[in-house]
């Protein structure tokens, strides 16, 4: 089941693309993703040493308003949490880090803000403590997450090739130039 969620794997690095998730208890694995207005939720159980990441973009609901997005998001979160529980994680020990939700292009709707609002509300509702965030802003992020320890690293994406590959972002706004990797939390 886990193998189905691998989008591409090079050595011990697993890249999680939009709509997918990955969980593991392997301390050698680093999860990576590139985010625009999408949000990645990183969850881990520090006692059990297992963790995972998802990467979602909520649909902009029309038929049922905001509920459609909430349904999709709650399901995406459930998939991640259920697989962590299967690996021995305990719900009450889960901790979270949240990334993404940038406003990548000008328009009437701020999809990134909706994604952030959902993720923050979900953590509140489920009582999962949020240990760190890097949310909002106007630039894409490249995230690395070490799922067994909860360590995370963020780098601002300035490579135009990477930005072109962000399917969710048809017209990326200029990003702040920052070549340094930043250790978070």
């Amino acid at each position: 089941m886990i193998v189905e969620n691998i989008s591409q794997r090079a050595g011990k690095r697993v890249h999680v693309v939009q709509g997918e998730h990955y969980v593991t208890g392997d301390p050698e694995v680093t999860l990576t993703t590139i985010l625009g207005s999408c949000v990645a939720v990183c969850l881990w159980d520090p006692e059990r040493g297992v963790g995972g990441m998802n990467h979602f973009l909520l649909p902009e609901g029309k038929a049922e308003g905001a509920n459609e997005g909430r349904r999709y998001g709650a399901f995406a979160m459930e998939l991640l949490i259920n697989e962590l529980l299967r690996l021995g994680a305990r719900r009450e020990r889960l901790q979270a880090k949240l990334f993404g939700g940038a406003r990548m292009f000008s328009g009437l709707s701020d999809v990134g803000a909706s994604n952030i609002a959902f993720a923050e509300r979900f953590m509140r509702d489920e009582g999962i403590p949020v240990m760190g965030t890097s949310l909002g802003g106007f630039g894409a992020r490249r995230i690395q997450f070490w799922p067994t320890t909860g360590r995370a690293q963020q780098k601002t994406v300035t490579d135009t090739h990477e930005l072109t590959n962000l399917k969710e972002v048809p017209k990326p706004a200029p990003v702040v130039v920052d070549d340094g990797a930043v250790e978070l939390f």
Partner: protein
Amino acid sequence: MPAPGAIKTLIADDQQSMRSLIRTSLNALGINQTREAADGEDALRALLAQPANLVITDFNMPKLDGLGLLRAIRAHGPISKTAVIMLTGRADRELVQRAVQFGVNNYLVKPFTTATLKEKIEAVFGPLE
């Protein structure tokens, strides 16, 4: 043709957000008599204390999962006729087959809409008023 307001419903899911979404959808259909349980054991206790007409249960739950809850309901005389709709993920075909064997009334694939939930409930109870 049952009046939606008369259908007493128990929602069993370990995720508060999912229970809230299901409750919102039920309320939109006029089903306002709802109770909630965070795992299968709690759900069974609640049913034995006060029966319901319909149980909407997730499969993945701590203590007693949805399949265990279904089997327990069918094994307890006073509540054995309770209608049960099971929530599943896309890849859970095998689970659905097992649930059918154990007497599930219907199943609902997540993420679902209020319209789909209505269809499933109507397939069990007949058209809602």
